[in-house]
C-alpha cells in the first residue's frame, strides 16, 4: 500500500530541490511589516477617505496619473504579490498530496500570477491616462 | 521481508544492557550486529529509572572503588560474588565516563563535573558515613541512558528488529546458534542464525500484582532459557521497593524519604521508630518493606481495605517538594488525586527488581550448571542476568551500573567470540516448538481467560510469596500454581488475525510469567533462612553455615530440580547486617 507522496522526511529530502525556505521565511516577515503600512495606507485612501461606491474610471485614471501614487502602488503590488503568492504556495504544498499534482498546481499559480503581475505593472507604467483617454476618444470620433 | 537472518552477533532486548552490548559489539569491525526487541528500543523500562548510577568518581567528596565494592557486598547480605563486585566497582567508573562521552547529559557540579548525590547504602570508608556516589541526570537518569544509547546505535547504524518477540533459543550441543522470533506486524516467525547471542531482556516484575515494572516485563527469556535446560540463579531474591503508589506500584523514589519524608500507619504513628530505632525511615529497602507489611497485617493499615501506609511529606517546605521531587509529586496528583504538599500519599511496597536470573560468569558467559560449564556463544547481561553482583538485595543505583558494565562486557566478548567462530549448523526444526506454541494458543478452547489467570497468578504471588514468606504460604502457592498451570491449557485467542495480534502475545507471556513464578516459589520454599530480600518468618535468621550459597533451579520434566553453588568470597567476611 505504497502512498504516492513522500511519507518520511528522508524521502521528502530526495524530492525537494531547493533550500530557499529560509529566505522565503524571512521575506514573509519583512514584506509583512512593509505591507502593514502599504495595505492600510491603500485602504485608508480608497475606502475611508473616499466612498468606494463613487469609484469609477475617471477617479482611477486621475489617481494613476500622479507619479506618487504610481510609485506607492508599485511597491504595494510587488510586495503583496510576492507575499501572497508565496503564501498560496505554502497552502498548495501542505494540501496537495501527490507530488505530480502539486507541481502542476504550482505551475498554474506562478503562470497566473505572472500574467497578473505584468498586467498590474503595465497598468501602472505603460501609459499615461491622459494619452489613453485621448486615444480612445479619437477612435470613437473616427467611427 | 525475508524470514531467515544471519548475524554474527544477535542481541535480544534493547534496554540499557542490550543497547550497550550492541554498541560495543558493533565497535568490532569484523562482525555484523542485530538487535531484536519486542518494544521499540526507547520504550524499554530502563527509561523509568530515576535515581542515578553509582560510581566512585569522587566529584563531590572523596570516594573509592573499594568502598563501593564493600557497600555492594554488604548490601547484598554477603551473597554477592566478591570478585564480581570488585570488578564492577572499578569498571563502572570507566563506563560512566564513556556514557558522558557519548553525550549523556548528566547534571553538573559548579565546576562542570558530573553531579553526584547520596543514596541508600552507599558509604565512605566501609560504612562510616553516606557518600555522594549516584551520578544523575536530574530525576531521569535511566531515561537519559536509554536515549543516549539509542542515539549511539543510530550513529553506528545498528540493525534493529523492532516489535519482534523472541520465543525460543536455538541451543544444540551445548552451544547457542541463535533465536526464533515472532514478528508482531505480520504474525510470522523468523529465525536468527548467530554465532553469538546476547540476552538482555530485563526483569519479570509483572508476576506480582503491585509492581513498578512495565507490562512488558514478563521474564520471557528467563523462562525460555529455563525451558531449554539452563538453570535460573537465586530467583527467590526479589526486591520490593517500599514506596510504590497505592495499587499502581508506580515508584516514588527513595529521595522522598531522603528529603525527610516519614512513613505513618493508619493511626498516624511513625512506626519505623519501632523497627529501626536509629535510622528509622531510611533503613534499607527490604527492612522498610517488611515493617510496612507487618503494620498492615496487624490491622494498622490505612484506607477502607486497611491495606496501605502513608508517606507523609506535608511537614516539608512546599517549595522543596516541588523543586526536588517534581515527578513523584506529579504522579501522586495525577494518579491518586492526592497533593503531597497538603495530604499524605497512600503507598504500598511494590515489586521492583529481580536480583536473580540467568547465571553467568564474570565475563557474561551463560553457564548451564553449578560447575560453571559455559554455553557456547550465549551471553546475558542486565536485570535478566545474574553474575551475582547484587546478591540477596540490590543497592539503589547499582542496577544501572550493572547494565553498562556487563552490557559492555557482553558486547565485547560476544563480538570477539563471533569473530573467531564459524556458524554452527542450524537444526531444520528450529521453528517447530514456537509454531506449536502459537498454534496451541490460537486454537485453544478459550474456556479460561488469559487476563483472569494472570490476575490470579499476580494476586496470589503478592499474597503468598512477596515480602514475607512461610513454609505454609509457599506450599499454598505451590498448589495455586499447579491449578493455574492446569487451567492454562484452556486458554485461547478471540482474535484470529495475523497482524498485530497482541492478544496472542499476552497469552504467550502468561506462560513465561508462570515459569518465573514457579522458579521463585520453589527456590524460596527450599531456602530455610532469611537473607536480604528473602524473608522467612519461620526462619528469621541468616544462616551462613548452611545457606551461604547460590540457588540454581532447573526445569525437570514437569517439575523442578534445585541445586546450589558456592558464593565466591574475597576480602570481606560475612557480618551481621546492621545499619
Amino acid at each position, binding site marked *: 500500500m505504497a502512498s504516492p507522496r513522500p511519507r518520511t522526511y528522508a524521502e521528502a529530502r530526495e524530492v525537494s530541490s531547493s533550500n530557499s525556505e529560509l529566505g522565503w521565511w524571512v521575506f514573509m516577515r519583512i514584506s*509583512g511589516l512593509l505591507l502593514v503600512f502599504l495595505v492600510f495606507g491603500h485602504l485608508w485612501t480608497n475606502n475611508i477617505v473616499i*466612498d468606494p461606491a463613487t469609484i469609477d474610471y475617471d477617479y482611477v485614471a486621475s489617481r494613476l496619473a500622479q507619479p506618487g501614487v504610481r510609485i506607492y502602488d508599485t511597491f504595494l503590488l510587488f510586495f503583496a504579490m510576492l507575499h501572497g503568492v508565496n503564501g*498560496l504556495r505554502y497552502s498548495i504544498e501542505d494540501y496537495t498530496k501527490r507530488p505530480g499534482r502539486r507541481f502542476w498546481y504550482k505551475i498554474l499559480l506562478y503562470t497566473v500570477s505572472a500574467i497578473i503581475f505584468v498586467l498590474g505593472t503595465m*497598468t501602472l507604467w505603460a501609459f499615461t491616462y491622459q494619452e489613453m483617454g485621448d486615444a480612445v476618444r479619437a477612435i470613437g470620433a473616427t467611427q | 521481508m525475508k524470514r531467515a537472518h544471519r548475524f554474527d552477533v544477535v542481541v535480544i532486548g534493547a534496554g540499557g544492557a542490550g543497547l550497550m552490548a550492541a554498541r560495543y559489539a558493533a565497535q568490532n569491525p569484523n562482525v555484523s550486529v542485530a538487535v531484536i526487541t519486542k518494544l521499540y528500543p526507547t520504550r524499554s523500562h530502563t527509561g523509568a529509572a530515576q535515581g542515578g548510577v553509582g560510581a566512585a568518581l569522587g566529584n563531590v567528596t572523596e570516594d573509592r572503588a573499594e568502598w563501593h565494592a564493600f557497600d555492594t557486598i554488604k548490601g547484598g547480605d554477603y551473597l554477592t560474588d566478591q570478585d564480581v563486585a570488585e570488578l564492577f566497582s572499578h569498571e563502572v567508573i570507566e563506563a560512566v565516563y564513556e556514557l558522558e562521552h557519548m553525550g549523556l547529559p548528566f547534571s553538573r557540579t559548579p565546576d562542570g563535573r558530573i553531579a553526584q548525590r547520596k543514596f541508600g547504602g552507599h558509604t565512605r570508608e566501609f560504612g562510616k558515613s553516606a557518600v555522594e556516589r549516584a551520578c544523575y541526570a536530574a530525576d531521569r537518569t535511566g531515561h537519559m541512558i536509554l536515549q543516549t544509547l539509542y542515539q549511539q546505535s543510530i550513529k553506528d547504524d545498528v540493525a534493529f528488529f523492532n516489535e519482534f518477540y523472541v520465543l525460543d533459543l536455538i541451543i544444540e550441543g551445548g552451544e547457542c546458534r541463535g533465536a526464533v522470533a515472532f514478528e508482531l506486524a505480520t504474525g510470522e516467525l523468523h529465525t536468527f542464525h548467530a554465532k553469538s547471542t546476547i540476552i538482555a531482556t530485563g526483569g519479570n516484575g509483572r508476576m506480582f500484582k503491585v509492581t513498578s515494572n512495565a507490562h512488558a516485563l514478563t521474564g520471557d527469556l528467563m523462562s525460555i532459557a529455563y525451558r531449554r535446560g539452563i538453570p535460573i540463579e537465586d530467583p527467590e531474591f526479589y526486591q520490593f521497593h517500599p514506596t510504590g503508589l497505592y495499587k499502581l506500584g508506580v515508584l516514588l523514589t527513595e529521595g522522598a524519604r531522603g528529603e525527610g519524608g516519614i512513613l505513618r500507619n493508619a493511626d498516624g504513628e511513625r512506626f519505623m521508630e519501632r523497627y529501626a530505632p536509629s535510622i528509622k525511615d531510611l533503613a534499607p529497602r527490604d527492612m522498610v518493606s517488611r515493617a510496612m507489611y507487618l503494620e498492615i497485617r496487624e490491622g494498622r493499615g490505612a484506607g477502607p481495605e486497611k491495606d496501605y501506609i502513608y508517606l507523609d511529606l506535608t511537614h516539608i517546605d512546599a517549595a522543596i517538594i516541588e523543586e526536588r521531587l517534581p515527578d513523584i509529586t506529579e504522579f501522586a496528583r495525577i494518579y491518586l488525586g492526592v497533593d503531597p504538599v497538603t495530604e499524605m500519599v497512600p503507598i504500598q511496597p511494590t515489586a521492583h527488581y529481580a536480583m536473580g536470573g540467568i547465571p553467568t560468569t564474570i565475563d557474561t558467559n551463560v553457564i548451564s550448571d553449578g560447575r560453571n560449564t559455559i554455553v557456547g556463544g550465549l551471553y546475558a547481561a542486565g536485570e535478566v542476568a545474574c553474575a551475582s553482583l547484587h546478591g540477596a538485595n540490590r543497592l539503589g543505583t547499582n542496577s544501572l551500573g550493572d547494565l553498562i558494565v556487563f552490557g559492555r562486557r557482553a558486547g565485547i566478548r560476544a563480538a570477539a567470540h563471533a569473530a573467531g567462530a564459524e556458524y554452527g549448523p542450524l537444526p531444520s526444526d528450529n521453528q517447530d516448538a514456537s509454531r506449536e506454541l502459537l498454534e496451541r494458543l490460537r486454537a485453544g478452547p478459550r474456556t479460561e481467560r488469559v487476563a483472569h489467570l494472570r490476575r490470579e497468578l499476580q494476586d496470589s504471588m503478592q499474597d503468598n510469596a512477596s515480602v514475607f514468606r512461610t513454609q505454609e504460604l509457599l506450599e499454598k502457592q505451590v498448589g495455586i500454581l499447579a491449578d493455574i498451570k492446569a487451567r492454562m491449557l484452556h486458554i485461547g485467542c478471540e482474535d484470529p488475525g495475523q497482524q498485530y495480534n497482541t492478544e496472542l502475545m499476552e497469552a504467550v507471556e502468561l506462560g513465561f510469567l508462570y515459569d518465573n513464578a514457579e522458579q521463585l516459589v520453589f527456590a524460596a520454599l527450599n531456602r530455610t533462612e532469611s537473607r536480604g530480600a528473602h524473608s522467612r518468618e519461620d526462619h528469621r535468621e541468616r544462616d551462613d553455615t548452611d545457606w551461604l550459597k547460590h540457588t540454581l533451579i532447573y526445569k525437570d520434566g514437569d517439575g523442578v530440580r534445585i541445586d546450589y553453588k558456592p558464593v565466591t568470597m574475597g576480602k570481606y567476611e560475612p557480618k551481621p547486617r546492621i545499619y
Partner: protein
Amino acid sequence: MYRGREGQWAFLLHRVSGVAIALFLLLHVLDISLVMFGPDGPFDAFLAFYHNWPFRIGLLMVIAGVVYHALNGLRIILMDFTTWGVRYQRQLWYGVLGLTTAIGVPVLWIVVPQIVGGI
C-alpha cells in the same frame, strides 16, 4: 475536529484570511488593469459586478480579514524573534482579536454604509 487551543485557531484564521486576501488581490489587480482599455472599456462594467450582494459581503470579510491577518502577522513576528512572544502567545492572540474588533468596527461603520448604500 482536533480540539486545539488558541494557537491552532490563530493559525487557521491566518491561513484562511491570507488565502482570501491573496485571491482577492489577484482579482483586484485584474480589475484595475481594465483601466488600460480606457473610459469606455470594460472597467465600469466590471465595477458593476462588484456591486453584487455576495461580492459586497465578501469584500467586507476580506477587509476584516486584512485587519486580522496584519495584526496576527505582527504577533507571529513577535513570537519568532522574542521569547516573551512565545510565552504570551495566547494573550497576544486575544489582543489581536480585540484590536481587530476595535479597528474593524469603526472601519465597518464607515465602510458598510458606503458599500451597502451604493446600490
